């Protein structure tokens, strides 16, 4: 009994953010990043790289519009190539943002409060990059609106039995809900910026964007309901999006695609590489902007653990992929896996095994999770590994399916690479623009983490 009592009276877990912060200093530190006239060289450099790559993207897109998708390496039978690989990769990266903002909110994981804002921004921009690829891949991108059902004189409609049309609905809903969730989260912080800026133009702009938010208790009460409801809606949504993306593959009868474990496998992979991206962004940002007190080593440690956990699910999926191929006793499934492991794409396959299965095992060690530089390197390894995974799934399955006479290999052209690097540029461009003009950490949610935010109740008389 005595022991139980001890457990119950154990002091609360240590505070998530560094001690010594007040409501005022938290507000000032986060808003100073935006409201200052000085821009760090790091920002200018990253924004510059992003902008240069964005120009490369525009160039390759103009060329694509002028000449057609033939500038890419897609030739029969591999018609999906880089475009769909990049689509799946980018969409997956977005998923960690929604996981942090919605699922961890529902699970009452309060540590998320200092990383959810930029993770949501990451989601939004990653989805923007992802959305580019299926459209550019259409062949006639200017007719992309044919994907939506609308009354037209041709009297034709999209095929609602096709997972590709489901994807249109899933991704556009995901983009809309992510944008709304992000904006709702920003409103109180926009009001803070409005009240703190000294520039008339900034006050007007932030004022319009804050919609007159004044922190009324009546508003907060509705606001809290709205956040919870949006989180509750975004949670099944985020799981559905990558599930639907995996349907693009599983519903086809291509060997190596046609399997039932793809949806959970894809969702886990998405969260895996999304957390890698969160770390890859958070680690440099917190040291450049001196935010180590708000995005602490505890956050990095937690993200590392989530990466390890989802990485293990992904590793399990790879094993299951081999097992089911053997267990189906289907010669085409056997061959698909065999080609993947020892065929023309073997080097990609074994690199992804290295990046996604072997490398993350080092995250078991606290020394690696506690070292930001190593963690950054590990995050990049996982990002590369997950890109390779999608590449191998898509290309190796299409290259060698049923008829050896119709086999053909995929060779990426420079425009494949230019478009891919270009979307990385678009992502960096948007992300660093966001860092400069909007608070990258949710100010009001960090305020709630401070010990003084707790209302001290007087002891009720016994």
């Amino acid at each position, binding site marked *: 009994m005595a022991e139980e009592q001890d457990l119950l009276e154990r002091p609360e877990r240590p505070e998530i953010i560094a001690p010594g912060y*007040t*409501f*005022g200093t938290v*507000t000032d530190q986060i808003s100073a990043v935006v409201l200052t006239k000085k821009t760090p060289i790091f920002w200018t450099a990253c924004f510059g790289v992003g902008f240069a790559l964005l120009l490369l993207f525009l160039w390759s897109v103009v060329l694509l519009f002028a000449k057609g998708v033939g500038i890419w390496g897609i030739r029969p039978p591999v018609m999906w190539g880089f475009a769909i690989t990049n689509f799946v990769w980018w969409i997956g990266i977005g998923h960690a943002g929604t996981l942090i903002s919605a699922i961890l909110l529902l699970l009452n994981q309060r540590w998320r409060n200092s990383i959810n804002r930029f993770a949501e921004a990451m989601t939004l921009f990653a989805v923007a990059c992802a959305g580019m690829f299926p459209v550019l891949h259409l062949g006639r991108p200017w007719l992309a609106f044919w994907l939506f*059902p609308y009354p037209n004189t041709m*009297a*034709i*409609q*999209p*095929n*609602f*039995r096709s*997972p590709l049309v*489901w994807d249109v*609905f*899933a991704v556009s*809903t995901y983009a*809309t*809900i992510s944008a*709304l*969730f992000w904006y*709702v989260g920003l409103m*109180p912080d926009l009001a*803070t910026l*409005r*009240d*703190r800026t000294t520039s008339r133009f900034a006050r007007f702009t932030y004022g319009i964007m804050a*919609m*007159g*938010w*004044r*922190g*009324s*208790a*009546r*508003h*907060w*009460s*509705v*606001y*809290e*309901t*709205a956040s919870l*409801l*949006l989180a509750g*809606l*975004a949670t*099944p*949504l985020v799981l*559905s999006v990558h599930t*639907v993306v995996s*349907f693009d593959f599983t519903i086809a009868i291509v060997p190596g695609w046609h399997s039932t474990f793809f949806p959970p496998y894809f969702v886990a992979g998405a969260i895996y590489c999304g957390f890698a991206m969160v770390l890859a962004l958070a680690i440099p940002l917190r040291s450049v902007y001196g935010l180590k007190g708000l995005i602490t080593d505890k956050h990095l440690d937690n993200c590392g653990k989530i990466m390890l956990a989802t990485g293990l699910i992904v590793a399990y999926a790879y094993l299951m992929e081999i097992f089911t191929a053997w267990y189906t006793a289907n010669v085409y499934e056997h061959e698909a896996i065999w080609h993947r492991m020892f065929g023309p794409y073997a080097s990609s396959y074994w690199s992804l095994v290295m990046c996604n299965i072997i490398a993350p095992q080092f995250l078991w060690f606290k020394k690696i999770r506690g070292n930001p530089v190593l963690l950054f390197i590990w995050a990049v390894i996982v990002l590369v590994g997950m890109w390779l995974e999608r590449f191998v799934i898509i290309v190796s399955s299409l290259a060698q399916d049923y008829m050896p006479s119709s086999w053909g290999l995929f060779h990426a052209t420079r425009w494949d690479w230019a478009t891919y690097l270009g979307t990385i540029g678009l992502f960096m461009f948007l992300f660093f623009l966001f860092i400069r003009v909007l608070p990258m950490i949710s100010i*009001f*949610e960090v*305020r*709630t983490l401070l010990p*003084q*935010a707790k*209302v001290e*109740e007087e002891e009720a008389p016994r």
Partner: protein
Amino acid sequence: MTKTDIYGVMAEFDNPTALVNAARAAREKGFRKLDAYTPFPIEELTDALHLHKNKLPLIVLVGGIIGGILGYLLQYYVTVWHFPLNIDGKPLHSWPSYIVITFEMTVLCAGLSAVFGLLALCGLPQPYHPTFNVPRFALASRNRFFLCIEATDPLFDRKHTSEFLETLEPKEVSEVAH
């Protein structure tokens, strides 16, 4: 009781506990038209001001149901009536393949109703509000906590209400002009 031409009187506190205690005291005193302004949501304050019920969940539920029904009907209309495709004599009303889009439309409409419902219930956007006339109110989005008793309250009296707020040990009491 003298009618006044101000919006109300406002007391400023520097910590959430003081504000919650003040809000409780004001409720106990009989004031009903009061509102608090804080830099972050405070659960105890919602209790103290008796703000628990709002219609947002209902709005979201209705929005979600409408979205789901519209999503399903859209697909039914297109695949059965507008553009029927007979493939191997399979049924035109192929409901399992409608599930994904029905779900997505449900979430989309529910999410849109959550956001627009939030704005509607809060009366936002509202670029002007009398509280913005108080110079120190800019701190409500930083580190100060405000309690405002509005002039529309039946018990409101410019002098006495200010005096009452002074008894709650605020940092400052100020009048809110219209």
